[in-house]
């Protein structure tokens, strides 16, 4: 167990260092999200009440699409010079690599959310009428749901010819329950019209199930040719 934790830390540190030097993922995600915010704000001019109703969907769709950019980058880096083979021939456990990638992507998407949320608030004149303390919980659970599935399916589509297309094709359908829970929970908190509790519990259950399933299956994905 300590070996998995230590190797996860080492791989995460390596990934953060590589991203700090190249800024490939964070720049692409930021640019993409910024475009979504600006284009939608010019496309229609909703009142604050309407904004609160649609913001949940808008915010999460923007983050979902932006996350796909990071998820593709995360494995593309391992394919350059076939570095992934160096990991595959080593005695290091596959789960350490998977966990490091998931945590790394979680950090990248969280940084993106921290930078983009103030812009969403300003452009869409948002204010939570429900319990605002639940928003960070929904954000954390929702982001984890996106990155845990995304990291797994990005690894699965790694050796396919058109992996940029394959990832959304695999990821989006399986993320529908999580996306629904994120949108409904966010909408509930912003409008204050109903409780978000059910959706938060659903999101937490989704995270647990998919994290365990991904950890269980990742070894097979890594060793596949």
């Amino acid at each position, binding site marked *: 167990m300590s*070996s998995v934790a*230590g*190797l996860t830390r*080492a*791989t995460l540190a*390596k990934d953060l*260092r*590589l991203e700090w*030097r*190249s800024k490939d993922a964070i720049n692409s995600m930021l640019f993409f999200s910024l475009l979504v915010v600006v284009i939608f704000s010019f496309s229609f001019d909703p009142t604050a009440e309407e904004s609160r109703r649609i913001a949940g969907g808008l915010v999460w769709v923007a983050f979902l699409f932006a996350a796909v950019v990071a998820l593709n980058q995360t494995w593309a*880096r391992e394919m*350059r*010079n*076939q*570095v992934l*083979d*160096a*990991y*595959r*021939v*080593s*005695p*290091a456990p596959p789960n350490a690599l998977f966990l490091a990638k998931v945590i790394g992507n979680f950090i990248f998407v969280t940084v993106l959310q921290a930078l983009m949320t103030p812009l969403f608030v300003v452009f869409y004149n948002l204010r939570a009428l429900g319990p605002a303390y639940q928003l960070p919980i929904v954000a954390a659970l929702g982001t984890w749901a996106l990155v845990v599935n995304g990291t797994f399916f990005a690894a699965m589509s790694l050796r396919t010819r058109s992996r940029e297309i394959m990832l959304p094709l695999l990821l989006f359908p399986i993320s529908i329950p999580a996306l629904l829970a994120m949108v409904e929970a966010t909408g509930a908190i912003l409008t204050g019209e109903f409780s978000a509790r059910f959706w938060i519990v659903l999101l937490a259950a989704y995270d647990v199930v998919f994290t365990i399933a991904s950890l269980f299956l990742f070894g097979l994905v890594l*060793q*596949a*040719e």
Partner: protein
Amino acid sequence: MSAAVIVTDLVKQFGRFAALRGVSAEFAAGRLYAILGDNGAGKTTLLRALAGLTPLTRGSISMLGTTDLRSVCGQLGYMAHPSLLYDEMSGMENLRYFARLYEISDRGQNNEDRCADVIRAVKLDSSLTRPVGQYSQGMRQRMSLARALLNDPKILLLDEPFSNVDIRSAGEMVTLLTGLRDAGKTIFVVTHQAALLEGAADEFIWMEAGQIVSRTSDLAAMTETK
């Protein structure tokens, strides 16, 4: 001499193409094998199969007395044609990361010392701070060899280690490999530059169409018939 590696009836199909067609052979411990053959003969596929990177269609591999390759991967060093290094990190940073994967420090040796040792062994400078992406091809090749040596493996699998390396550096690499062989390592070298290993390799293995067609210690005799 005991066999370090035994391969039995190895078959590897890529769709309808058979890269390996029933390869069976025994390889003794502490010897240096040069694997030769034309492009597409199955040399790299054989090496990847030995490294456990290519699932076989049929056949089995026994390495260091076990068929569970995962259990002996810590005693294997693998150098591929690509560098298997992160271009954005320096050589030392790369090696530090891979040393963690092999948990070198748990074997009683300091990570930093071991990384510096292997960098010195391949005649590079451990104080180089520029990223590997800015290295010359030859330097990258030597750093790649350093990565393969990091865990002090009992079996070394090297795919084209001399490509893009100047004659002097290639000679130094051969000297290093013979030293490792003399220290008891079993070494497999896939190469198109067989002449570099003349007098160093214990055996030359010629592959053709996914099969081993001849094995000899006399390179001149082999080249005469090919």
